[in-house]
């Protein structure tokens, strides 16, 4: 079980791989769309990679609710 810091850092690596955003810029308060400029296609890729990495399921209706990086970290922490 990864703790929140480990989830954040793992998620940041995925975001950097998929969207080219420096992992250091992927902070909890950042919005995927408004701050990090990640489009819906890249969000799907990030979700799939996060599922594999953290052993969670992120259904589409849930993905739509994950507005910020922090939302995603919390969801993964609760559901892993």
């Amino acid at each position, binding site marked *: 079980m990864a703790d929140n810091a480990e989830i954040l850092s793992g998620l940041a690596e995925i975001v950097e791989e*998929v*969207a*080219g955003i420096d992992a250091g810029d992927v902070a909890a308060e950042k919005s995927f769309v408004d701050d990090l400029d990640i489009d*819906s*296609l*890249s969000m*799907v*890729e990030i979700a*799939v990679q996060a*599922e594999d990495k953290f052993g969670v399921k992120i259904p589409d209706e849930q993905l739509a609710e994950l507005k910020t990086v922090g939302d995603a970290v919390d969801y993964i922490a609760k559901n892993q």
Partner: protein
Amino acid sequence: MTGAPVEVVVTGYGATTPLGGDAASTWEALLAGKSGVATTQGAFTERFDLPVKISAQLAVEPTDVIARVQARRMDRCEQVAVVAAREAWAHAGLDGDEPKVEPERLAVCVGTGIGGAVTLLDQDDLLESGGVRKVSPLTVPMLMPNGPAAVVSLELGARAGTHAPVSACASGAEALAWAYRLLQDGDADVVIAGGAEACITGITVAGFVQSRTLSRRNDDPERASRPFDTGRDGFVLGEGAGILVLERAEFARARGATVHGRLAGYGLTSDGYHITGPDPSGAGQSRAMLKAVQTAGLEPSDITHVNCHATSTVAGDVGEAAAVRKALGDQPVLTAPKSALGHLVGAAGAVESLVTMLSIRDGIVPATLNLDELDPGVSLDVVRGEPRKMDIDAAMNNSFGFGGHNASVVFTKV
């Protein structure tokens, strides 16, 4: 119709080919008589026992030029389109902070023959091995045949329309014809036009092998593509992209652009004869050539050079030479750049149109490589051995495609 009401000029160009990662290095290598054909590299060559082991692969990998994150969202055929378009855009002096052309007056017309076949295969493998969730959400935009045109329009912010002619090996030339029409019709001031292809993989090679169209000269790759030679045994599959910046001359002059050539006319016809083989009468090809001459407001005798489609297949080359003679007469001096470049499929007509225009501008025609013994069925003068210096006022590029597509474009000196 005689004479075009709107003068269409070429103000920039870009290319990435088996001979070089840009237009200048490609042109230099062509004039130097270099070959882009070699033993095919890639994992698929070990996976399948293909009887054809040679191809004309890119001199410079597009992923060496395009940022990783942008590249991973594109199929290889889209990547090469972007590489060539960026070069053309900068070469035309359209880059920089201040927009030189309004986005609403900028169109894109980039064709492909096959498109994102490699993406389709890769994603199908992922579907088979890992299920739906493993398939990239970018699958469709990466495999769609309008993909190369679309990524170029995104890259440059073109909003006057984005078009993707698909006519197999005529696609690149047909894209120039459509661009010419867009400019004639007043739909745009500038059109980014050309073709892109990158589909050298197991299934395409196998498919062309089964249609008996590829050269099997595996032991001597550089000698394999030999248009018009008696020893030719098929074409060599290549990959690459070519882009021209076409512009209304009035607009180009007003912004002080350098003009490299004029796209004076085009002819598009179809054979309606056979799915792969050309009509042996050459009637469709001749009609395309004549139409191109007519839209350019010229006489057939004005065309002194033809940059041929000539792919190095047994039937095609001789048929084209006969069709040239029938349409234009005895005077055109021919060359066949596929002897060096291989066959770039949907990019061929664009890259070779660029070569045609450069031949006019620089007064020199590259030699046809490997032409040791001219097929007796060819009664025209084919440049071989050394490139030939000649003053050219008007020249033609021919591109023909599976499906019976015939595209001819005429360039004139400025």
